[in-house]
């Protein structure tokens, strides 16, 4: 319970910070919508074939935006040495990971929700009947992406050029999550069962989050 309260306090801090500045969510959502726009330019959006690749396009936009969001959740700690304060707090460093993971997932998820209407308009896909399934699958996919990303952003933040190499490290490691998410979304779009993809995605989430939780303490040490 004690640990839970601490995670809650850390999470509340990140949420409050975001509520006051609104920088992270805003830039992430803007970038996500911009990616959808660029993809609509790149692929003829009204053609029937484009519908087939729509799940992939959607997740490309989400992955790009998520990278920016992860970078932001970590950058706020770098700004005035916030990380120093977190490290001085008498608690397990894994809890910092859990709080950052939850905050990152929440912001990325919100950015995805705000992108979806634009996707519907630009690509003329009716997602309303499949919205419940999509919301569930996106949550699992986003959590898995952030589970890896929260660890790796902490790694790259401690390099010379800060977050520059984050995508280079993150995308190869996140391949299984992105593949599962795209396949699940494609199944939903085709009107088939997405249960298999969702189950595997949740399994990936558990594995990635546990490994990252165990490794996080090493990353933060001085």
């Amino acid at each position, binding site marked *: 319970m004690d640990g839970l309260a601490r995670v809650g306090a850390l999470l509340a801090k990140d949420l409050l910070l975001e509520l006051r500045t609104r920088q992270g969510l805003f830039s992430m959502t803007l970038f996500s919508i911009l990616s959808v726009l660029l993809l609509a330019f790149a692929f003829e959006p009204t053609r029937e074939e484009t519908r087939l690749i729509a799940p992939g396009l959607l997740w490309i936009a989400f992955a790009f935006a998520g990278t920016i969001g992860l970078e932001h959740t970590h950058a706020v700690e770098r700004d005035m040495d916030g990380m120093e304060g977190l490290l001085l707090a008498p608690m397990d460093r894994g809890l910092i990971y859990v709080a950052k993971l939850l905050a990152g997932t929440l912001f990325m998820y919100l950015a995805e929700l705000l992108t979806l209407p634009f996707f519907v308009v630009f690509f003329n896909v009716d997602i309303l009947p499949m919205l419940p399934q999509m919301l569930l699958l996106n949550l699992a996919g986003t959590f898995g992406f952030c589970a*890896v990303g929260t*660890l*790796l952003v902490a*790694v*790259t933040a*401690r*390099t*010379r*050029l800060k977050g*520059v*190499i984050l995508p*280079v*490290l993150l*995308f*190869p*490691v996140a*391949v*299984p999550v992105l*593949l*599962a998410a795209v*396949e699940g979304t494609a199944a939903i779009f085709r009107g088939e069962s997405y249960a298999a993809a969702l189950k*595997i995605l949740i399994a*990936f989430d558990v*594995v990635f989050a546990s*490994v*990252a939780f165990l*490794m996080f303490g*090493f*990353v933060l*040490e001085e």
Partner: protein
Amino acid sequence: MNGARNRIDRGLILLVGPAMVLNLFLIFYHAPVERTMGLVQKIFYFHVPAAWVAFLAFFVVFIASIAYLASRRASYDRLAEASAAVGVLFCTLVLVTGPIWAKPVWGIWWTWDARLTSTLVLWFLYVGYLLLRSYVPDAARRATLSAVLGIVGFLDVPIVYLSIRWWRTQHPSPVFAGGEGSGLDPRMRAAFFFSLAVFTLLFVVLVRLRMRLCEAEGRAEALLDERRRSL
């Protein structure tokens, strides 16, 4: 101590050099030319051992990373770095020889098969690993951060492989039945296993030399630091 290590390295190089020449002889003269694929099948004797060495190298990175985090001894970090560098080299060889072999045999350069695709993802992972190392100037921090990536990256390998096999494999099985499978001529088998042994020995030699280079770099860095402080 250093003298003994020098002698071992020199001995290994003297051993692996002629062995590689003998390996070429076995591959091109001893082993018969494959009936359907012809001369191009000779790539097999380089491609598969290179793949073996690449996976061995990344496994060594994984083990050395765990050992470093547990013991904090710099030598494990040097082993991880050396092994990753040699592993990327051999992984590149795999990715180059593969398409050269695939084009005449399968008619295409590339196929989205689980093994091919995960080898490519693996290549990106460990190039990223080396890139990360070059971005962290402080030696202790570099060792810790790259150890974390070395562990996470390797644990990711089977998951990447499985996910690609489930969702992105477009042909059932290669024409060539899994490499060293049944029906291999005894002379072919001899050449193959000799090649495997020679490549592994080459890996050991290269890692040893690379580790010495890392050590020398570390010493040079320490000397520079000392000089900067005294100024």
